[in-house]
């Protein structure tokens, strides 16, 4: 009897990686706003209870306190749900994290639609947009468990502010193992013809499934993983613009301010020597979410494998 392949949320591997880092570096600390068992930041507690700081339900206070600890040389992982971290504490992030280049890793958990049943109040769908406009901010969105480990290690090694967008949505470890993770370098998962998907985060798994569906229909579609939303890999965008006719961006985020927007900015300024690709933005079309299961919500917004495949078929 074969075991079913193990699924995990990026938040799960995040917690484990945080604990590993804490075991090797005494300067690693974590704080949370009464959600540590959900965000998995509490995993650090088992390594050293002194280095887990329960800040209570006070996101603004947590972010400013994180900045203070960072000023003392700590590598601070500041955690709560993405929607509260980036929304409630935006000014603190702007003033005390981004502006002074504080070495704080802002870990926004349960991001996107896939928090599911909690509904629109908790669905963080503009966080990338908010963080992307801040100077000095780096944004990483790992696509599966293995990549989360790489992304968290990269954020730790990078001295400065990083926003890491994490999810509770459980996926397989579907990304190829062994591709090096470099901040700012997009990964080509698959070469294709005419159409290329550009996506990031756990929804990328649906993109991979969609490409498989399309392959059965005889369509060879490319896939690129833009795990770093900022700085965006502009060279990759230019390459895709030249090599493909259509770039389909898939954001588990508002189409305003996410990957589609970032690619669009790049594309618009790219003086292509020949014809360049048209951009199509799949994502949340300037509306709020609602309660439902993660998969139902992704399907409703056209980001299930079938929906994505149908979208591509409609282009051709």
């Amino acid at each position: 009897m074969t075991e079913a392949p193990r699924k995990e949320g990026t938040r799960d591997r995040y917690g484990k990686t945080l604990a590993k880092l804490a075991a090797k570096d005494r300067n690693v600390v974590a704080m949370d706003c009464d959600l540590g068992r959900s965000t998995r930041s509490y995993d650090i507690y088992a390594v050293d209870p002194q280095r887990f700081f329960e800040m209570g339900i006070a996101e603004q206070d947590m972010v400013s306190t994180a900045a203070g600890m960072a000023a003392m040389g700590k590598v601070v992982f500041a955690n709560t749900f993405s929607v509260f971290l980036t929304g409630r504490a935006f000014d603190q992030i702007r003033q005390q994290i981004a502006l002074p280049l504080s070495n704080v890793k802002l870990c926004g958990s349960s991001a996107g639609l896939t928090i599911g049943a909690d509904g629109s109040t908790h669905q963080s769908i503009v966080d990338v947009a908010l963080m992307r406009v801040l100077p000095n901010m780096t944004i990483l969105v790992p696509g599966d468990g293995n990549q989360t480990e790489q992304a968290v290690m990269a954020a730790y090694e990078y001295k400065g502010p990083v926003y890491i967008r994490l999810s509770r949505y459980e996926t397989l470890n579907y990304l190829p193992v062994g591709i090096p993770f470099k901040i700012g370098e997009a990964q080509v998962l698959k070469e294709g013809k005419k159409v290329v998907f550009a996506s990031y985060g756990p929804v990328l798994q649906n993109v991979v499934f969609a490409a498989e569906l399309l392959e059965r229909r005889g369509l060879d579609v490319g896939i690129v993983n833009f795990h770093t939303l900022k700085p965006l890999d502009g060279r990759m965008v230019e390459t895709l613009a030249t090599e493909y006719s259509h770039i389909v961006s898939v954001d588990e985020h508002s189409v305003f301010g996410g990957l589609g927007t970032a690619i669009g900015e790049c594309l618009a300024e790219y003086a292509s020597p020949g014809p360049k690709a048209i951009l199509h933005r799949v994502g949340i079309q300037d509306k709020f979410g609602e309660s439902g299961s993660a998969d139902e919500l992704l399907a409703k917004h056209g980001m299930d494998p079938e929906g994505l495949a149908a979208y591509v078929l409609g282009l051709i």
Partner: protein
Amino acid sequence: MTDEGKVRELEKKAWMIRLELIRMFSVGKAHHFGGSLSCADIVSALYFHKMNYSKENMNNPERDRFIMSKGHSVPTQYVALSMLGIIPGEELKTLKTLGTRLQGHPDMRKTPGIEAPTGSLGMGLSFANGIAMAGRLDGLTIKVFLLLGDGELQEGQVWEAAMSSANRGLHNICVFVDRNRFESQGEVERSKGIEPLVDKWKAFGWETFRIDGHDMGSICEVLDRFDGTNSKPFVIIADTIKGKGVSFMENTFKYHNASLDDKEYQQAIDELQGTLAALGEGRTG
């Protein structure tokens, strides 16, 4: 007990700060006069008396820290830092001009001696807590001093942080509230009343004092009672006068952020020089 001579010396330094502030602000440019003048005595007592802080130890992890949470009053801190030899005196004139290290609000990346990014009000105490928490993890013996504006207490984050300091037993934090009664557009009490301040801070778990923020003897006396090993974090509500020392700026919000004409400038300089001269005479006589 701080001796009488020392108290007089600190008073004089506070007046020198005020005079230097006016010179630095000069004519025809908008600056935060009121709140910079009201906190000069507190800043003088901290930098020149209480804190383990000097040009020599300013990079030592065990130094005491001062955070100007009401960031718009940072010119007072710039002047004090120049008196400590950390910022060259001639640099004060570059305040808020393009390319200067002396930004309009505190920038810890640009200015030596600035310990925290503040200016957007309400964030300083949380930041101070972070310093104290990290210091405790590292076994450092440090004290963290913070100056809050009274209007700033209308920011909810201050009270989030106040709960944290008390809950975590951060006894090495000492907060001054510059209670000058005015915010930018009028009296603090007209918009969101913050009194009774002593009761509020006590209820939040703080050791609380209320003093005359221009009585250097009282400032020193209450600071003598703080050594960082107190049973609770320490807050001193300092009743002050907005615009202290320049008659036409006192007790009004109009000079919270304003500019002076030549005549006003000269009057301010004359008044402050007069006060300093009187202090000098008192000391020698």
